[in-house]
């Protein structure tokens, strides 16, 4: 009995729990008629994905996913849904006809890509070794370990992203005004 408990891969079981929640939430997002139900299923997906990020050792990304992605972007979606007062008539807006064939063919092709990905052998060379990430996280913390590549190797994309966010703010304010 203790052998079974010691050898049981609890981490993988936990991963499967969160992965099923994520996929279930994704399917719920795609199939709900009410936009608010769709959004809440997406919130479930995002929280499960944050847990999987933590399991994969990306602590900063997991925290940023919850704070920024779920807590800001999806709340913005919610505000817009409430502002436009949608969902009073819960008619189905699913397409039919040729679209169904196209959608299933597209999803099937991607599923075939999944199957191919699982068939390839497990021989991938390690770049820096596991010690590098662990050492950086132990010495600088989860945020400090990310800051070193972010502000050295990726400084130009970082500054360009800040300019892009400024442009997005100006664009969003201009586009949503009543009279320009």
């Amino acid at each position, binding site marked *: 009995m203790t052998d079974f408990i010691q050898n049981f*891969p609890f981490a*993988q079981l936990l*991963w499967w729990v969160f992965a099923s929640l994520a*996929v279930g939430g*994704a399917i719920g*997002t*795609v199939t709900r008629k009410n*936009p608010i139900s*769709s*959004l809440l299923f*997406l919130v479930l*997906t*995002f929280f499960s994905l944050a847990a*999987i990020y933590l*399991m*994969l*050792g*990306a602590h*900063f*990304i997991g925290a940023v*996913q919850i704070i*920024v*992605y779920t807590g800001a*972007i*999806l709340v*913005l*979606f919610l505000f*817009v849904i409430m502002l*436009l007062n*949608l969902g009073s008539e819960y008619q189905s*807006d*699913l*397409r039919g006809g040729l679209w169904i064939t*196209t*959608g*299933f063919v*597209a*999803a099937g092709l991607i*599923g075939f890509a*999944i199957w191919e*990905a699982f068939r390839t052998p*497990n021989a*991938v060379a*390690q770049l*820096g070794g*596991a010690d590098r*990430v662990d050492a*950086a996280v132990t010495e600088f913390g*989860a945020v400090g*370990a*990310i800051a*070193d*590549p972010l502000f050295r190797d*990726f400084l130009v994309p970082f500054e360009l*992203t800040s300019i*892009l966010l400024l442009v*997005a703010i100006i*664009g*969003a304010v201009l*586009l949503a005004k009543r009279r320009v």
Partner: protein
Amino acid sequence: METLQLMDLSRLSLGLSAVLFSVGVAGVVFRRNAIILFMCIELMLNAVNINLVAFAHRLSSLEGQVFPIFVIAIAAGEAAVGLAIIIQLYRVKGTINVDQADELKG
């Protein structure tokens, strides 16, 4: 903090990323509500993030964890501008059904 050294998790996460991406593609194809279209696009972006983080875990690189930061920032900017456009579409057409926004057709 120790990272989980189970290599299987990264391969399983690649499969999860592909499944989420295909669900997002199916959502974009099937739905006509513009806001739900946007939510399916965010789902696809999250599938890409899972892909990047899975490879970062497999190859033990920190650079694979920096790119999702940019993806999230760009998704935020895109969501803000896109939702502003949807608000204007609603003010002009009275509906956010994308099939009825076809004035550039033909």
